[in-house]
């Protein structure tokens, strides 16, 4: 959808700014090195009807963030005890990409939480994340948008009444110093640009060079004149909008303030993000042996005990974005199931280890193999699953929705489910 310029009264906004639709279709970037947790998170987000892009690799995530063609409304990233990648993401966000970031962690230590919040996380959620908590993350997005411009409903009304926008009040102001000077003239259609992360405007990334020009312009101006408009004029760069400069100015000022007060903690921590530690975590990742998870052969267990040490070192779990967007599909049609409903009979008869659920004889319950210590699966691999099922075929089943529910339990959960209905 295109945005019309300030001349027209009607603005057709991109899908996730439409106030009746929002927050449906919210664009989320989810990052977690742990594939199980990521899969769970993605499912939660899809349940909220958000549009999810997910990856286990921080580098991929940063690439996506900086990629001009992608745009996200919010980031959810995991941070671990020994894995500081999540903070790296926060830093990337702080440096230019102005979207809210939510942290997720299994680590509930106060220090970590504090650090997360101080470094700009909107929220710090503990694993496992609950649906209730995740449902509310859109509030962070909305809050941030409202900070940049006044109440969008008010804005739309004004636009319908007046053709050019002559002036506008800013509800809560990021650039307080500028306000006094900037209030007057602003035929500012840019204020929609500033928050619309889904508008197809090339994202400005503050390269070193650009930043240096900014600093030059900043220092040229006297204290009272350091307002975004002036800096913008001095820099004279067509890519920049006033808003870009404004937010960068804010960050610059914060940084200077911190330098001045010599905030020890934060400055010290910034050193974490230097080249060496990025390298270290990369090595760690690859040594952590990320197997590629194939969605089709899900019932093939790895041959336990047979593989040598060499197999322990695997390749990174790298999900190139197009493939992984399988997760991102938002339609409610049932996905083509390579595996049929549930799970099927064994695929591989050769291995002595059980290969699928279907072959699980009922009478084998509770037997723990003696060699459990060496992960030897002594469960026999018999093929007679047919016998168990055949008598029970001709039955009407209940809907998939209430899975495993007894009537009494079902009532409780039905209530829960109906509350969730959008």
């Amino acid at each position, binding site marked *: 959808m295109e945005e019309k310029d300030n001349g027209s009264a009607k603005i057709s906004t991109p899908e996730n700014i439409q106030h009746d639709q929002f927050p449906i279709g919210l664009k989320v970037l989810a990052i977690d090195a*742990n594939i*199980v*947790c990521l899969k*769970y998170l993605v*499912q939660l987000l899809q349940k909220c009807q958000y549009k999810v892009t997910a990856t286990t690799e921080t580098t991929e995530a940063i690439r996506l963030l900086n990629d001009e063609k992608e745009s996200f409304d919010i980031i959810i990233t995991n941070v671990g005890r020994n894995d500081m990648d999540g903070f790296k993401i926060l830093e990337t966000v702080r440096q230019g990409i102005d979207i809210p970031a939510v942290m997720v962690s299994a680590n509930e230590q106060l220090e970590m939480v504090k650090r997360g919040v101080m470094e700009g996380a909107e929220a710090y959620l503990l694993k496992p994340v609950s*649906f209730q908590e995740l449902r509310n993350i859109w509030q962070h997005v909305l809050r941030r948008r409202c900070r940049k411009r006044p109440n969008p409903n008010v804005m739309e009304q004004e636009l319908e009444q007046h053709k050019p926008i002559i002036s506008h009040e800013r509800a809560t102001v990021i650039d307080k110093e500028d306000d006094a000077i900037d209030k007057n003239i602003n035929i500012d259609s840019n204020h929609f640009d500033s928050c619309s992360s889904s508008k197809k405007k090339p994202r400005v990334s503050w390269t070193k060079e650009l930043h240096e020009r900014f600093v030059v312009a900043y220092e040229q101006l006297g204290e009272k004149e350091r307002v975004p408009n002036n800096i913008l004029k001095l820099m004279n760069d067509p890519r920049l909008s006033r808003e870009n400069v404004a937010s960068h100015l804010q960050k610059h000022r914060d940084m200077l303030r911190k330098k001045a007060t010599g905030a020890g903690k934060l400055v010290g921590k910034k050193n974490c993000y230097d080249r060496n530690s990025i390298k270290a975590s990369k090595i760690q990742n690859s040594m952590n042996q990320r197997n590629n998870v194939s969605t089709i052969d899900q019932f093939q267990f790895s041959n336990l005990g047979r593989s040598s040490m060499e197999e322990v070192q695997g390749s990174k779990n790298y999900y190139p974005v197009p493939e992984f967007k399988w997760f991102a599909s938002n339609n409610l049609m049932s996905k083509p199931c390579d*595996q049929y*409903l549930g799970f099927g009979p064994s695929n591989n008869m050769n291995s002595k280890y059980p290969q699928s659920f279907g072959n699980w004889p009922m009478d084998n319950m509770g037997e723990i193999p003696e060699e459990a210590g060496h992960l030897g699966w002594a469960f026999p691999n018999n093929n007679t699953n047919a016998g168990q099922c055949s008598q029970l075929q001709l*039955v009407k089943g209940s809907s998939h929705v209430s899975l*495993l529910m007894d009537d009494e339990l079902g009532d409780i959960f039905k209530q829960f489910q109906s509350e969730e209905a959008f």
Partner: protein
Amino acid sequence: MLGFGADRLRADMNRLLALLFHQGILDEQFLQLQQLQDESSPNFVSEVVNIYFQESERLLKNLRALLIERELTDYKKMGNHLNQLMGSSSSIGANRVRNVCIAFRANSEQNNRAGCLGTLEVLEHEYCYLKSKLHELFQIEQQRVLGAGVRYPMHQN
């Protein structure tokens, strides 16, 4: 009589689930997983659990390999594996496995090799048990779902 089978299966499943909850093998998180399963992702639980099995087996293998190493046991790497295992276990509601991981991690933080070996045994044992129980659960579910393939208008379960 035809509807009898489905009821029985569902009862079996609930009984098994109740037992698992009672024993602390699974916790409420598993229920969350089930609730996330719907028409648009009808196999979500089994998918996640499968991935969990793959990951866990890999991690357990790594842990054992790390501990067998007499020369220089890399406790830090062990800690990382354990965090992974803990995180994934808590995400699917594998309560007991997670608790054993916590104990294991305490041992590894104290560089207690003997303690680690002991907890590794327990961990593997717990994991095996969990896996067998989940298999059982899924098998009942499979039967139920297969049985639901033929629908009779009168039985509204």
